């Protein structure tokens, strides 16, 4: 991890590419203005950063690109508040701030030899996308890779181009779904909420790790299905998204119980979540 003398001073980044993923959702590809910083920068899947628009403020997103791909970072966000609105107004060539990487990591090395089940909903695919590409870049280390991804409507699916890529790969089983009523006439994927589609495809739980990211309601209904399939809480991982500011465990905002989501998370197992007060 690169350490800077001023903890709060971000790297300066150039906005290199904007991809319109879905209504209100964009992916930014950012290059380090200082190439040496870019060369030295490294992170691991699961970590997040604070992205700045100078004058508007900072915003917390996971790093959505894979750590195996050097020289750039990506983030995906939905326009919702002050800073994301300012981000949405930026054009290619503009300058942003980037502060990170922060947080803990997915323990990929512990999953060697296991099968991986990725479950994501809507705008929660970005933290997983980083992990998925990381895994695919090290594909031979793992057994089966299954990805279940759902969104409200076809238009709301993000990373459409990459979904296409993943669906073409023989070493990945990809299942996409949209909520009932969200399908188009051309849609050939599943129709149904993520938990019920999960129940339908019934992946094996033996020697498998599940990673679940999505809105709280999706997680709430997915967890019992995973239990029924035989997953124990210590084999189910998720990422928490609390309101954050400093990202380094000082401002107090993300303090939940004795944990700081920015330091002890955002990656947690369900086993760990059970020990937290329900304040996230």
């Amino acid at each position, binding site marked *: 991890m690169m*350490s800077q*003398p*001023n*903890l*709060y*001073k*971000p790297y*300066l980044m150039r906005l290199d590419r904007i991809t319109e993923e879905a209504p209100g959702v964009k992916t930014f590809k950012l290059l380090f203005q200082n190439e040496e910083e870019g060369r030295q920068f490294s992170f691991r899947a699961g970590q997040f950063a604070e992205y*700045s628009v*100078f*004058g*508007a*403020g*900072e915003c917390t997103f996971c790093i959505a690109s894979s750590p195996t791909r050097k020289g750039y970072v990506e983030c995906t966000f939905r326009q*919702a*508040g002050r800073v*994301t609105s300012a981000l949405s107004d930026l054009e290619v*060539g503009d*300058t942003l701030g980037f502060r990170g990487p922060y947080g803990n990591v997915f323990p990929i090395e512990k999953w060697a030899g296991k099968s991986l089940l990725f479950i994501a909903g809507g705008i929660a695919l970005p933290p997983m996308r980083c992990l998925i590409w990381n895994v695919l870049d090290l594909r031979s280390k793992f057994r089966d890779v299954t990805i279940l991804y759902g969104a409200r409507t076809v238009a709301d699916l993000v990373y459409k181009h990459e979904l296409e890529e993943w669906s073409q790969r023989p070493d990945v089983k990809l299942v996409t779904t949209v909520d009932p009523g969200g399908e188009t006439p051309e849609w050939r994927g599943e129709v149904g909420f993520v938990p019920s589609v999960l129940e339908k495809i019934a992946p094996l739980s033996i020697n498998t790790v599940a990673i679940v990211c999505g809105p*709280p309601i999706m997680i709430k209904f997915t967890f019992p299905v995973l239990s029924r399939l035989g997953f124990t809480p210590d084999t189910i991982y998720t990422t928490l*998204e*609390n*309101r954050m*500011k*400093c990202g*380094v*465990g*000082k*401002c*107090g*905002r993300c*303090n*939940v*119980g*004795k*944990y700081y989501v920015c*330091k002890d998370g955002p990656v947690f197992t369900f086993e760990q979540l059970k020990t937290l*007060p*329900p*304040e*996230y």
Partner: protein
Amino acid sequence: METERRILTREAFDSLLQKAVAAGQRAYGPKDLDGRIDFAPIARLDDLSTGHVQTTQSAKFALFPKVEELFSFHREGNAQVLDEATEADTPETLLLGVRPCDAAAIASLAAIFNWDTRDPQFNRRLARTTVVTITCTHADEYCFCTSVGGGPGNSTGSDLLLTPLEGGTYLAEVLTARGQALLALVPESSTPANAVDKESRLACVPSRFTAETVTAKMAVAFDREGLWREQSLRCLGCGACAFVCPTCACFDISDESNGIQGKRLRTWDSCGFSLFTKHTSGHNPREVQSQRWRQRLMHKFVYMPDRLKVLGCVGCGRCSRSCPVDMNILEHVTKVAEVK
């Protein structure tokens, strides 16, 4: 370092302060501001108020100001340039007349700002601050330092510890090299004092509970919704308690800019505010005041000891004195400690 004890006459004390100020130190101490005692710039000993138990605000402003520039930025053509705050923004500071509880609070602040990663702004200020503490000869019913590991004559966090004696003189205990350097400003004035009885002059602050008991009981009381609701029903959710508290360090970060140049600032914040944990989506993990009140106490008495190995309360009582509706932390913590 064996504690050196000296007698400091009033004249010597005055001379010490004036010499320190003349040498460029910014001195702050308790001052009578129209009947309210609070920290203000002082230049001579006559400025210093001494008959009070405690000041309204804490001295944390010296290490963690209410507004602090993290860095500034400006445009040069199409490029953004980031500028650091200069060293000149961190003057040498002399805190004169803090209480032992305030000095002890520095350890709590340092735990927050330095665990895992070191906060450069806080450390720059800490390195340039000298703490001259005056022990307590009086306490009031809000004080409870002895219940949280402190005491009216404790030396933790102080560079010089002064105990008032007869005739305006002080017993001066030299605790650090910084304290030594300060006292060296008046070498001809301070005489050794080995036989002075400090303890008999200190205020009596009966211990009301032990911190370990409170930590254990409070952790168990987390789910007692009724208890937290009842305690917090009159709480208005303002930030007065957090802002006068010497150990509260939660902050917000915001940008101010005119489009060409601007600054990124950090400012005091409070877990008691309703917006503190609210997501942009509208979801708020601590939606009601009772959850936020609980967080305040749990953070200070359970989470901080667990995680940072230090309590988040020094028993100064300021929160209770300042609360508009008489939320009394000693009373509330004691009640939690009595929970079966």
